[in-house]
């Protein structure tokens, strides 16, 4: 996808099924997202004891909410309604992400979810920006 740019390349890979760039403490094993290199929140291990790990973008929907009231000061960004999900990843961490589903219709707590890249406007050079979203994994997949 040479003509696409990632909205947040520090947080996910450019695959069609993007992987999440997370962190792991080599001292206590704590896995965390978003990544940081200041020190382990769980045990206090130093930055050189933290390693980068990738998490498969798959998990279960823990809760969801369709946002009806949203102010985007630029006016060019995301407009309501959109739906946010809290997803417990198969590796353990719980993360919040925008869902591909614009509203909560058809969503149920416990649904299997997976990551995708979705269009999110264009940059100054006219290139397509894509960002990570989660979407419901249909049973047939």
């Amino acid at each position, binding site marked *: 996808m040479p003509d696409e740019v990632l909205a*947040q390349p*520090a*947080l996910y890979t450019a695959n069609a099924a993007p992987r999440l760039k997370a962190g792991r403490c080599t001292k206590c094993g*704590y896995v965390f*997202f*978003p*990544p*940081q290199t*200041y020190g382990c*929140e*769980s045990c206090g291990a130093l930055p050189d004891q933290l390693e980068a790990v990738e998490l498969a973008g798959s998990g279960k929907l*823990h*809760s*969801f*909410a*369709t*946002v*009806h*009231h*949203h102010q985007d000061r630029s006016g060019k960004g*995301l407009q309501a309604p*959109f739906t*946010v999900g*809290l997803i*417990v990843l198969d590796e*353990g*961490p*719980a*993360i*919040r*992400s*925008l869902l591909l589903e614009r509203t*909560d219709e058809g969503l149920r*707590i416990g649904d299997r979810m997976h990551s995708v890249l979705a269009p999110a406007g264009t940059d100054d050079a006219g290139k397509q920006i894509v960002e*990570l979203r989660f979407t419901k994994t249909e049973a047939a997949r």
Partner: protein
Amino acid sequence: MKKTIREMRPVYVVGIGLHKYQYMSETTFVTLGLTAVREALADAGIGFRDIESAYTGTALLGMAVSRPILRHLGASGIPMAQVENASASGSTAFRQACIDVASGISDIALAIGVDKPAPLAPAASKANIRDLVGARVVPFTHFALLANEYMNRYGLKPEQVAAVAVKNNRNGAKNPYAQRQKAVTLEEVMAGPPISGSLTRLQCCPVGEGAAAVVVASEEGIARLGIDRKRAIKVLASVTRTEHVYRGAKNFDAELTRETTAQAYEEAGVGPKALDLIELHDAFTIEELLYVEAMGLCAEGEGAAMIASGAVDIGGKCALSASGGLLAMGHPIGPTGAGQICEITRQLRGEAGARQQPNARTGLAHMVGIGAVCVVHILQKS
């Protein structure tokens, strides 16, 4: 050996004052603060010259807030400092004033909360740690997610969560200091406008401006200044904790409240059954259900049924958010936690008028703030 507040000198609330919580206006923070402090000093029957230390809880006004307010009471040279602890700033300023008196550093100390709305971003936003959602998830969506999970877990309807706003607005309608002073029906709450998930506008607290002030005193201070002992309310416990790491999707707001309240019960030597009223962080309706369960007032999942039963109305077993809470009285940030102490003191004195909880003897004040922090105080009539 370390000590709790209760194991040091006894601390009493002897003066309370407020500036009405309201939508942002031309009123300066100086006028807001002075109104509350003058009312608290008059309530205690003392002068500003009697105050020996002062803390101002504020999150949005900027550097050095105390003296631009307090100098107009006659600059006396006392120690003053600002306390910023997110939504719990006023609660933490009160705690610092209590610590001064309990330790013996001061006999009379003042805690203020004052704020006006301002677009000030939390420090964490400058840590260069970005998540996937950024500003697309603001507090109301954080709590809409919790509401979604809670309703699903216990098989509840949105109306059962929204009922919290009906109760708290009914209480707020009787509070002259409240930002929202109008009783609303469940139909009005549900009619919206929708904000996020099942939360409608009246299920989200108004953030405006205001001020609250509390004077605390030692027994020596009360005796020296001839303060009315019958109206003095004792501080039984003062506890604050911060979030640790909770694995998976565990609800940290409720867990932190559970831990902090449990420690406060232990320090005070009272349990949830002893409470006649609670002022808690009901910034969103769902929070009241989560926190009363975490405080042990009822079993997990029973909060909505308890609200519906009337047991937590004024006149019930334990009045929840008799002031109107954050939902109706409002949440001007800095003042909110100090304002809770004002309400509990007024109630325990039996001076709350139309919203008086009968025979109130023991009350609990609870705030959480982003970070996350939690502050709990337990007060009791002597």
